[in-house]
């Protein structure tokens, strides 16, 4: 995850410490279990299975069910098997683009439709990999928030590197959240949001891109083509009931490129797009 995480709690000191402990342990548990950088965890077993079926535990199965549903709902734009595209795409600000052939070769190993998922058994084609980075963090925020809320009903804010969830009583002074300006000075003023309950998640540019012949390739890749999405905003922040929902909406908005604002407007959610 590699982001600073914090818990802001209005409960009494002892309870707040317990909440912090519960949140931290849950965050580390989820990271160890689902990170693709760890050996021996369920994701590693799936990614090294080389075509053989892998049976997964109920929590992993829930995440795979969610990923499958989102793959359907997003017409294939959201795809946890798209991670292998990083083998040919390195977004370091240079002008090194992969060739169409290189992308085509990797694309053969991308696509949730090439996997067979029948709970609890997942079978990937050889060479395929899954990456839960696109849902892991927001899922961890929601899980941690549920644990914190179970310990006390006082307002509590979980913040994992800018993805937030506020739980507890709603009748209180809201949490003040700032969305930073993005881009050349003066282009986008900072926004202030009063969050009393619910989640905010942000998908962003993080200055990762490639530049060639005057065309800027953002790091958001469309898994259906293997190429970057064009016209994506620099950053999208969405407010939703849970961090998982907010994260998915902001990710999908980025994947919609130039249509990001139109997409979010149609969903009727509160959003802030910076270009």
């Amino acid at each position, binding site marked *: 995850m590699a982001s600073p995480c914090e818990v802001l709690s209005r409960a009494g000191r002892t309870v707040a410490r317990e909440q912090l402990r519960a949140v931290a342990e849950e965050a580390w548990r989820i990271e160890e279990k689902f990170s693709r950088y760890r050996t021996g965890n369920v994701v590693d077993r799936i990614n090294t299975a080389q075509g053989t079926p892998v049976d997964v535990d109920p929590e992993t199965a829930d995440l795979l069910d969610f990923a499958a549903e989102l793959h359907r709902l997003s017409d294939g734009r959201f795809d946890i098997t798209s991670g292998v595209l990083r083998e040919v795409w390195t977004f370091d600000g240079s002008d090194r683009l992969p060739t169409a052939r290189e992308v085509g070769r990797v694309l053969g190993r991308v696509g949730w439709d090439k996997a067979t998922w029948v709970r609890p058994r997942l079978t990937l084609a050889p060479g395929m990999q899954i990456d839960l980075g696109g849902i892991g963090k927001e899922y961890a925020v929601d899980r941690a928030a549920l644990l914190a809320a179970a310990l006390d009903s006082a307002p509590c804010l979980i913040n994992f590197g800018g993805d937030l969830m506020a739980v507890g009583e709603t009748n209180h002074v809201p949490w003040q959240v700032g969305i930073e300006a993005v881009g050349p000075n003066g282009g986008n003023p900072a926004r202030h949001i009063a969050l009393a*309950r619910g989640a905010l998640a942000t998908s962003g540019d993080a200055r990762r891109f490639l530049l060639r012949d005057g065309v800027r390739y953002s790091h958001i890749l469309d898994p259906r083509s293997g190429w970057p999405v064009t016209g994506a905003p620099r950053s999208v922040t969405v407010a939703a009931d849970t961090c998982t929902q907010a994260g998915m909406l902001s990710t999908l908005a980025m994947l919609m490129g130039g249509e990001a604002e139109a997409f979010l407007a149609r969903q009727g959610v509160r959003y802030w797009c910076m270009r």
Partner: protein
Amino acid sequence: MGATDGGREPGSGQFVQRLAAATCSLLGIGSTVPVLAQEEPTWALDTSFLYYGESDERVQDLSLNVLARRLFADDKVLSFGLVYDSLTGASPSGAIPLNEVQTFTRPSGNDVYTVQPGELPLDDTFLDTRYALTATWQQPLGRLYTGSVGLSFSTEYDYTHAGLNFGITRDFNTRNTPLSLGAAIARDEIDPEGGAPLPLAPMGNIGDLSARRPGTEDKDVVDLLIGVTQVVNEHLLVQVNYSLSDSSGYLNDPYKILTVVDPATGEGIARVPAPGTAGPLHEYRFESRPDQRTKHSLFVQGKYYMGGKVLDVSWRYMTDDWEIDSHTLEAKLRWPLGDRGWVEPHLRFYTQTEAEFYRPSLPVGELPEFASADYRLAPFDAWTAGLKYGFRTASGNEAGIRLEYYRQDGSVPDGLLIGNQDGDALSPELDAVILTVSYGFDL
């Protein structure tokens, strides 16, 4: 992407519901609690304080500028501007230095002032306090358009301005090419001290306001602008604007005069005030400008971003039907300094040709329809060199200090010199220092 997929694009109303259901399933909860998130309108304030001082006891200006912007949800912005200017000092009246003592009647007609031989005559009448207010409302109109409407108002003791402006911007090319259209109309009212002088009327003795028009004068201005900005690539942004400005009504400066001179020597013509009063010792006439002026401007600007530094280069060309042509070339380089600071050296060059009716003095017996000796209508070059230092404070507010040096060099075309007149004496240089201190913060 999208509409060709027949109803299942992630844009149908079903999407949010199905996402919610999938999330509840994942988290093992029955339902979610509705989010309560509201954008707070914020005020962003920019304030600056400016000191402008010309050499040789000419004009000094102290100016306070406040701009307040309130950002509402849905990208609506309300802004207010307030400018307070306090001007002191004196400005050339248009009369030329002579080898003799000169006496002038003040525009009010109540008093006289005297200028020594060889001195450039300066008039301090216009010095004053000025207040200006602006209010603008800006909001998106649909997905690709942004519109704005604004009011402007300013007042000083002899001048009032009221204006209305509109603007609309449309984004093209996935927001890489905004196109803007703007229009502004204004009505200004001038109430010169003593009344507006009749065109080319002679300057009279104290108490003589016979050659003045009673009441106030009006000026109407219409401005139109069209501009396009193009994001060329990650580093470069280019903007081109064309604007048209049309003024009609009273365009004279009611306090500016011309010295009447001998056509052979170029010296002043002596005059004797009426017995028992004081008045000018030479002949002068009030200026006269056309009652219409149309200006065309073309502005081209490029901003180049290179790893934290920003180079801003621009050129403006202006031409009008008074035959003034001008060019402004400006370059600024913003250079980051440390974590939160930056320096910005800047250089500007301005050059203009004279108005068709500009003349430093008027030969006796000649009464053209239009004539003005105002140095601002004369040919001149001006340089500005400056350095700004800015930084972001720990709380994210921006502060800056800028020092600039301005130098203006006029020249009088030989053909407009009469007799023994010396071009250098008639258009002395102007030096000024400008110090600006600025601070921006959020409320």
